[in-house]
């Protein structure tokens, strides 16, 4: 109801209000919209009412409202109803627009608050994103480290597995070896058991025995000796002699080697000293002065150690020698390093031209060397010619004859020596042959003698009484053997004696020492002791036996 009341109120001021909007329309920018009654005179005045009316009509029609005035209406008075309607419409319109404006403002507020909210949330989310990214990289880093650890642990595991495999293989091979050995021992044991049982069952045991036609002499021809303490001591002595001679020889070799090495070291030191001296002469004066004092003291040291022949065996001297060598070596090294640096500097500074000069110098050197090689080759050839000439020359006859003469002399001498050696060798061969032949003969004779003896004894036992004359026994030897036979086999004699158990006279022993023989001879002169053991096949030695045992000689001679 407000608009009506306002309309009623404004009924009288319409003209005034009309003027105001008109003015407002014209000066919209400078005038405020709401309730500006001050500018009511700007749009409509008493004079321009129809124009204002037509203008307002146009405006209203453009707004889509009913026109307030038509041209058919001739009265200048406005149709108040239409004008009021128009005003009402306008006010509605205005209200509507205000409402929409409010709505839009509300909407705008809402959207701006939403926008703010969204901005806040985006910043928060961005921060969160950053945070999580950082966490992610951290986690990735940890994962990488853990993976590396895993790899290394896997490697360790592989190594440990390999080690274990190796140990297992080793244990397996040892086990197979042990099993193999054990099986072998078990087989041996079984064989032993079998053999033992076989032996226990087997009645006739074959005994060990040796059957030799005749004993052979020792390889070195000497008699064997009985084992006594003296021989034991001799063996010990010989053993220690062998060891000592070996140590002596070794020590001699080492001494010679040491001397040689010391000599070489001295030579090296001298070479180094001379080298350094040369270099010192070519160096600048400043350096000389600098090193001069040092060198003097060193040279003094060198002078002291300069006695190659004398103090070879003192530790002090050898220490001095090695120290001086080390010193020289160090100086040589530093000098060479200096030279190297100088050369590199020179190379860097010189540039291209210097690159060609070393090449040129190299080529010059190569040419020089080639020339030298040619010269040496020529020299060798001429020397060869000379040598050939000398060998085949007949001009210097005297020296060649002399040489030939010496050669012939040597040859003759060697031939003579060779002849004597050959003669000796043949003599030895012959002697050995004789010995062996004698052995054969002896063995044959012994056999024959034994047979005869057997038959003779048989005769004796059958014919004679036990207390027969020993002399007669020896004399009536049918073969006429005058030599004492030297050895009887134990078996044969024991056989005879077992057959003839009633003859205590014929005690025998095949292994008696000479001492025992003497005792026996002195103790029981009536018993004939037969044949002491003598290890020789030489007939001459058998004659010696006669000399040793004159009693037997007496007994056998008639």
């Amino acid at each position, binding site marked *: 109801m407000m608009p009506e009341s306002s309309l009623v109120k404004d009924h009288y001021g319409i003209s005034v209000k009309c003027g105001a909007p008109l003015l407002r329309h014209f000066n919209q920018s400078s005038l405020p919209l709401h309730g500006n009654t001050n500018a009511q005179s700007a749009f409509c005045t008493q004079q321009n009412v129809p124009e204002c009316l037509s203008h307002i009509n146009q405006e209203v029609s453009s707004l889509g409202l009913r026109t307030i005035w038509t041209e058919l209406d001739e009265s200048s008075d406005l149709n108040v109803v239409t004008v009021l309607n128009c005003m009402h419409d306008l006010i509605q319109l205005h209200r509507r627009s205000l409402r929409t404006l409010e709505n839009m403002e509300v909407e705008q507020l809402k959207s701006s608050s939403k926008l703010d909210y969204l901005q806040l949330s985006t910043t928060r989310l961005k921060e969160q994103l950053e945070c999580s990214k950082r966490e992610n990289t951290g986690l990735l880093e940890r994962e990488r480290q853990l993976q590396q650890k895993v790899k290394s642990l896997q490697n360790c595991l592989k190594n440990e597995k390999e080690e274990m495999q190796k*140990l297992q*293989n*080793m244990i*397996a*091979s*040892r086990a*197979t*070896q*042990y*099993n*193999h*050995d054990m099986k072998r021992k078990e087989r*041996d044991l079984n*064989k*032993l058991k079998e*053999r033992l049982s076989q*032996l226990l069952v*087997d009645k006739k*045991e*074959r*005994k*060990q*025995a*040796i*059957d*030799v*036609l*005749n*004993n*052979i*002499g*020792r*390889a*070195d021809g000497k008699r*064997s*000796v009985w*084992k006594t303490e003296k*021989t*034991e001591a001799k*063996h*010990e002595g*010989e*053993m*220690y002699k*062998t*060891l000592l001679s*070996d140590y002596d020889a*070794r020590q001699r070799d*080492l001494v010679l080697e040491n001397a040689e090495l010391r000599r070489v070291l001295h030579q090296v030191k001298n070479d180094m000293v001379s080298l350094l001296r040369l270099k010192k002469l070519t160096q600048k004066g400043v350096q000389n002065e600098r090193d001069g004092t040092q060198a003097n003291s060193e040279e003094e040291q060198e002078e002291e150690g300069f006695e190659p022949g004398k103090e070879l065996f003192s530790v002090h001297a050898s220490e001095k020698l090695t120290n001086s060598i080390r010193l020289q070596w160090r100086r040589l090294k530093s000098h060479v390093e200096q030279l190297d640096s100088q050369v590199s500097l020179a190379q860097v500074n010189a540039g291209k031209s210097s690159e060609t000069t070393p090449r040129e110098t190299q080529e010059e050197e190569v040419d020089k060397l080639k020339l030298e090689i040619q010269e040496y080759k020529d020299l060798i050839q001429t020397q060869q010619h000379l040598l050939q000439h000398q060998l085949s020359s007949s001009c210097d006859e005297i020296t060649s004859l002399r040489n030939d003469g010496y050669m012939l002399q040597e040859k003759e001498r060697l031939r003579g020596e060779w002849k004597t050696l050959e003669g000796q060798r043949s003599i030895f061969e012959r002697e050995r*042959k004789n010995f*062996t032949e004698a052995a*054969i003969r002896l063995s044959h004779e012994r056999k024959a003698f034994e047979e005869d003896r057997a038959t003779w004894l048989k005769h004796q036992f059958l014919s004679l009484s036990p207390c027969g004359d020993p002399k007669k026994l020896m004399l009536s030897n049918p073969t006429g053997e005058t030599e004492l036979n030297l050895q009887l086999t134990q078996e044969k004699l024991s056989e005879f004696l077992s057959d003839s158990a009633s003859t205590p006279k014929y005690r025998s022993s095949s292994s008696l020492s000479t001492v025992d023989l003497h005792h026996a001879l002195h103790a029981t002169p009536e018993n004939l002791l037969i044949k002491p053991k003598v*290890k020789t096949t030489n007939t001459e030695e058998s004659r010696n036996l006669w000399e040793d045992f004159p009693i037997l000689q007496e007994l056998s001679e008639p």
Partner: protein
Amino acid sequence: MNFSEVFKQSNQLCKVSPDGKYLATCVQYRLVIRDVNTLQILNLYTCLDQISHMEWSSDSLFILCAMYKRALVQVWSLEQPDWHCKIDEGSIGLVSSRWSPDGRHILNTTEFHLRITVWSLCTKAVSYIKYPKACQKGLDFSRDGCYMALAERRDCKDYVSIFVCDDWHLLRHFETETQDLSGLEWSPNGCVLAVWESCLEYKMSLYSLDGRLLSTYSAYEWSLGIKSVSWSPSSQFLAIGSFDEKVRILNHITWKKIAQFEHPAIIDNTKATVYKEIEKRPAVSSDEMSLHDITVASSLFSTQSKYDISPLPVQIPVVKPDPDRANPKIGVSALAFSSDSRYIATKNDNMATAVWVWDMQKLRLEAVLEQTSTIRCFQWDPRRPRLALCTGNSKLYLWSPGGCVSVQVPAEGGFQVHSLNWHCSGDSLILIGKDQLCLCYMDADQNNE
């Protein structure tokens, strides 16, 4: 190089006398003595059973023939064929028989190694040695023939006894540091005795002649240890070959290792020459084959071979041994020094077709010979640095520092060379096949090179 004709032999028993004049061979139960140069039969002896072992005495006058099955030993004299000697061990059996260095005593080892009987041919006396150890090499004579070292085992402990060979006097008797002694060997100068353990532990002990322990050497623990041992003729070096395919050289002054020779499968970065045997089959053109060709050329069916120098790197064929078997075929099983101690030849069992020759002066590899089949035997010439080897085919191979040569043994019906022995003068070689033997005479000018 001349080859003699082929003769029969049994049991690979062919030995030249120590003085180099006679050759003794066994054919079943006969002993045949020939002159070395003319190969005429000088003497023929008949034994009572098939001969298991034959040996010359040191003065070349007597020969020992042992028949293990019947526990008999017969000794024959070269000068008096009528002389005979028979040793019967009886029920106690016979496992090995050998001469003493003076050539007048015979040492018989009974079955089960119960004892060693020492028979004297001078006095028919008998001595006994108790508790000998049954191992790879339990008995060794020193080179000058004065002393004998014997390994004994009493109460589960190892001992070594040193006897004086003159009168079999026991010089020293001492316990060794070993758990299970496997072998012992005198140094050539007779002053040091090397004693080594079984392969379960790598341990080499060195004893002086008077029984003092000089040093022990152990390269590593737990794995299989020593496989082969050899002294250098100058007594300066002791070479030890082991299951880890390496050879270690000890020196006689400090008894420490001075060199280690390895046998890698790929040879590279060395100044050595590698000789490879190449077989080339002869071209057979059937049209031109005449009767003459067929009868004369036994080389028609045998392949010619020559040596080529292989450029480095070279790969040597390796055969991995069966891990489940005892005494695996891996490691250095054969070592030999040349007579001047300048070279050493080695063979690694899992590279059995190759022989490695090392220079002892420079302590590095000198040459490798790669053959087409497994190497059976190699031996150095006793006078000069020349190595002869055979691989079971009909060829003889020789290496010297100047080069390498492969020679076909001209024998009808094919002659497979199983082992070889040099004559003591280095002028000839005895080639031994399965049941044949052949002599190879070197040329005089070859020898003088």
